[in-house]
């Protein structure tokens, strides 16, 4: 079976996880997180980031979202302060 290139893009996955953990993760206790899977939680954070930057809110690491994540920026989180 052909491997789906998007899935296979480890670098992008690391970029997304690192970006969301730095700028879109609010420290919350496990109760608050509830039964969300990692994927659901990440999709939710991605939507938050996409909404903040005025991107299409897909909850997926599409090209436009990855491009935004690669821009030089301030290290202060965008949420949760």
């Amino acid at each position, binding site marked *: 079976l052909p491997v789906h290139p998007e899935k296979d893009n480890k670098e992008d996955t690391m970029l997304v996880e690192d970006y969301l953990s730095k700028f879109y993760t609010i420290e919350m206790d496990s109760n608050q997180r509830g039964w969300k899977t990692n994927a659901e939680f990440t999709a939710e954070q991605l939507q938050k980031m996409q909404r903040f930057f*005025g991107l299409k809110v897909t909850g997926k690491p599409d090209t436009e979202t990855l491009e935004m994540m690669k821009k030089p920026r301030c*290290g*202060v989180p965008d949420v949760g302060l």
Partner: protein
Amino acid sequence: YGVTLPGWKKNNLTYRIVNHTPDMSKEDVDKAIQKAFKVWSAVTPLIFTRIQEGIADIMVAFGTKAHGHCPRYFDGPLGVLAHAFPPGSGFGGDVHFDEDEDWTTGSDGFNLFLVAAHEVGHALGLSHSNDQRALMFPNYAYISPSEFPLSPDDISGIQSIYGAPTKTPGKRPAIPTSPNTCGSQISFDAITTLRREVIFLKGRRLWRVYPDNSEVELELISAFWPSLPSGIQAAYENMKDQILFFKGNNFWVISGYKVLLGYPKNINTLGFPKGVKKIDAAVCNKNTGKTDFFVGDKYWRYDENTQSMEKGYPRRTVNDFPGISSRIDAVFQHKGLFYFFHGSRQLKFDSTAKKVLSEIKSNSWFNC
């Protein structure tokens, strides 16, 4: 805008520059940081005093990766450029810069003044804004340091915490929110018509002038076209109700509020030779459907119908436009006449009679 309250409980704040980046002279670092604080003192009652020793409210330092006891770390070149902490004791109010970045006073690398002004915004209690025009937008965006970097959003944010500057005339500089169009030295980067309007561009801003009823509106270029850069160098309206904007060897085609897909493109797609790096000014002659591009003391002519550059160009501008001998900042056509701008002067030119009719001040369109 967003705020992290509470702000500082006092208006007199101290700052200390703990160390310097080797990328710039110490003097330039000091100047950039001082100017960054001035940005915020211009719009609030806050007064910042630099101290050389001891603990200041706002400690400014350069570090790499994990630095001191800071709970956050830097990530080498690019990525995170700097960070700061909201008002408070300890790390509160402190500003850290990633020394692995290339810090400069200009547009190359990362402009220390612009990043410092953003981080000081955090140190005073602002969080990130999702307004792309705001200084407190999280991503780095270079704007000319000569321009006042705060947007209305930034000013509303900081004044929601500290209020407006105290009214002591003569003590505080006026808020330089836009170049004074009636100043005697005003010049423009580019000018274009748009239907019955004339649009004057300078830095990040544009003025919409309605010649027939003396209305003038000031806006940020990004308010209409967020993906356009500041510092547009040439612009003209073609025959298809579109505007073309030029900066360096890139150009964009705009239709209404939309930047057409596939732009920016390189100007050599229009037929310019590789040696042409930028366009000084451009105007489409509505009578002939031909566009003249002015570069230095020469110009090219482009046929909008055949979408191709005419043969026999470039030609020397002064040969075909007697009297137009210096480099041109901007040009546009209004009621059949052409207005060539150079610095604070403009020449009214009759292309039929092939002569300059009069010389006027560049800001004559602004009812000064």
